[in-house]
């Protein structure tokens, strides 16, 4: 073990760190502002919510917004827990499927040689660029033709193809050295073994980033509930929260603030879980 200052992760505060804090702390305050705001806003009572000039911090925190939200939820025909359950199931399914499909496709596109490979990549890039507003009606027609309108699958299937995810993971896989795969091949590893044992661990940071991106899109998605379903009991939490803020009453504003906090918390949890896997990849870097 090295002595004192050369430790990789210092336990104690060191003077060499001061310049870093000088840069980081003001920026962190700036960047942390919306997080603080969203938390404060949810606990503001009515008079503070509409105070002019608007206040950033809450001075008399209360749970009134959450109580209103619960009352509203209890009054509606579908229980609140149903929306939560729907959202959880849909998000989990999309997350697993999207990551599986993107990593498999990225592995093939990055490390294998076959015909039409470049054309496939171009199609993905086109999908990346295309304006989502334009494909709303064709997508609706496709979904009604397959016959999954107003089912669970209508939430899941349109979202599992994530062009951004594939692009991101493919770009990271390109940097995995070919010689590592060749070495594995010489040892007798098949394509699936290489995919599971080498490729996946090595692109873990990209996968974690892809997870966060996908989660964010699916969790906050109101489009599929809006367009592809008509039964209230299979719609998602994001949709329900959106209808609350659209109420337009004075209470609706407060409830929307509370709802925003509720929608935000799972993002926080997922980020905390996945960020450790983004950061701890140096140990697996393989070739020297």
């Amino acid at each position, binding site marked *: 073990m090295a002595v004192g200052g050369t430790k990789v992760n210092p336990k104690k505060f060191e003077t060499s760190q001061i310049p870093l804090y000088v840069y980081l702390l003001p920026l962190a305050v700036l960047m942390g*502002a919306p997080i603080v705001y969203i938390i404060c806003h949810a606990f503001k009572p009515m008079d503070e919510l509409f105070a002019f000039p608007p206040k950033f911090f809450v001075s008399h925190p209360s749970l009134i917004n959450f109580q209103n939200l619960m009352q509203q939820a209890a009054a509606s025909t579908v229980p609140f827990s149903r929306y939560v359950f729907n959202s959880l199931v849909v998000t989990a399914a999309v997350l697993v499927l999207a990551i599986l499909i993107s990593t498999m496709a990225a592995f093939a596109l990055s490390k294998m040689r076959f015909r039409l490979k470049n054309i496939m990549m171009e199609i993905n890039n086109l999908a990346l660029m295309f304006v989502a507003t334009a494909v709303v009606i064709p997508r609706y027609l*496709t979904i009604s033709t397959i016959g999954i309108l107003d089912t669970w699958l209508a939430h899941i299937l349109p979202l599992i193809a994530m062009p951004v995810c594939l692009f991101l993971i493919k770009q990271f896989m390109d940097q995995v050295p070919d010689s590592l795969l060749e070495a594995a091949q010489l040892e007798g590893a098949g394509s699936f073994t290489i995919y599971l044992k080498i490729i996946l661990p090595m692109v873990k940071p990209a996968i974690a980033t892809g997870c966060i991106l996908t989660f964010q899109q699916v969790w906050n998605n109101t489009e599929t509930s809006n367009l592809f379903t008509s039964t209230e009991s299979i719609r998602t939490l994001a949709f329900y929260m959106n209808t609350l803020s659209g109420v337009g009453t004075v209470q609706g504003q407060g409830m929307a603030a509370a709802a925003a906090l509720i929608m935000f918390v799972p993002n926080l949890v997922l980020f905390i879980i996945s960020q450790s896997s983004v950061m701890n990849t140096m140990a697996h870097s393989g070739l020297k």
Partner: protein
Amino acid sequence: MATKKKQQNMQEIAIAPKKPSKREKNPHDKKRLTKRRVREWLYGYLFLSPWIIGVIIFFVCSMVTSLNYSVHKIIFDNGVQLQPLEFWYKNYVDVFTLETDLPTTLGTFTISLVLQLPIIISFSLIIAMLLNSKIRCRSLFRMIFFLPVIIATGPVMTMLTAQGVATVPMMSDGSLTVLLGGLPAFIAEPITELFNSLILILWNSGIQILIFLSGLQKVSTTMYEAAKIDGANGWESFWKITLPILKPIILLNSVYTVVALATGGTNEIIELIYSATYLTPWTKGYSYGMAFSWIYTAIIAVILIVVFLLLKEKSDKKVKYEKRLVTLR
């Protein structure tokens, strides 16, 4: 003399047929269908198949339909009915004639993209490098810098901007307007907008920071140590080690940023397309909106191609050439 020449000829002839036989054995030769290549194809398609199915059903079908719609007149009457136009590209011509705001909006967008892209990329690179260094509460800082991006997409952001949290106080008091007074409006406007939304830009660069961070994880610390022993300071090792290694990540990040800015919900051109498609059904309508979005996609493609050309690795060709030489030998 003559015999020597003959000998040389003989040697050449002796060598000549050897070359193609060597090439035949080369597994990278594209024309030969060896067993191994077929196997590799099969595995390639096997891994791709779920993606291909998804793309065909949800993307290619939708694209073809929208392309078809864009060259027809659509009537929503008991389902979708298509009527032929006077000439097939009428909608495309209409976009250029009816959309009088398009050139200025597009110009403003392009200029603000050119201004914002370097800011976002360099800011997120700096933050990523700071967050990658050894400090306490690293994960807390990482969280603070990433999380705004989640909120930035939601309705909370509109509340925040309405309350003026997102503007730099100094900028709004008119000092900037004085500074930019001499410039023509189409340049001054994006710059003032840039300063007004500076904090917003920073809030939105969470994903880029995350991508850079995961790229930085790959840079082995031994390389920096070696450079330090050879007498390089931090500045030099940034330019000679960090930047070259991060170059593909910079390209990836730039593409992501361009796409996010161009197709994000707050983009003015997207709003134009939306209002043309859904809010003015009698003059413009759905097929017009389709044509508009195809034109816009083409514009984004051009921007992305420029980004690619600017940032692609220049040694790429050389490396490929050397690789081929190695396999031929």
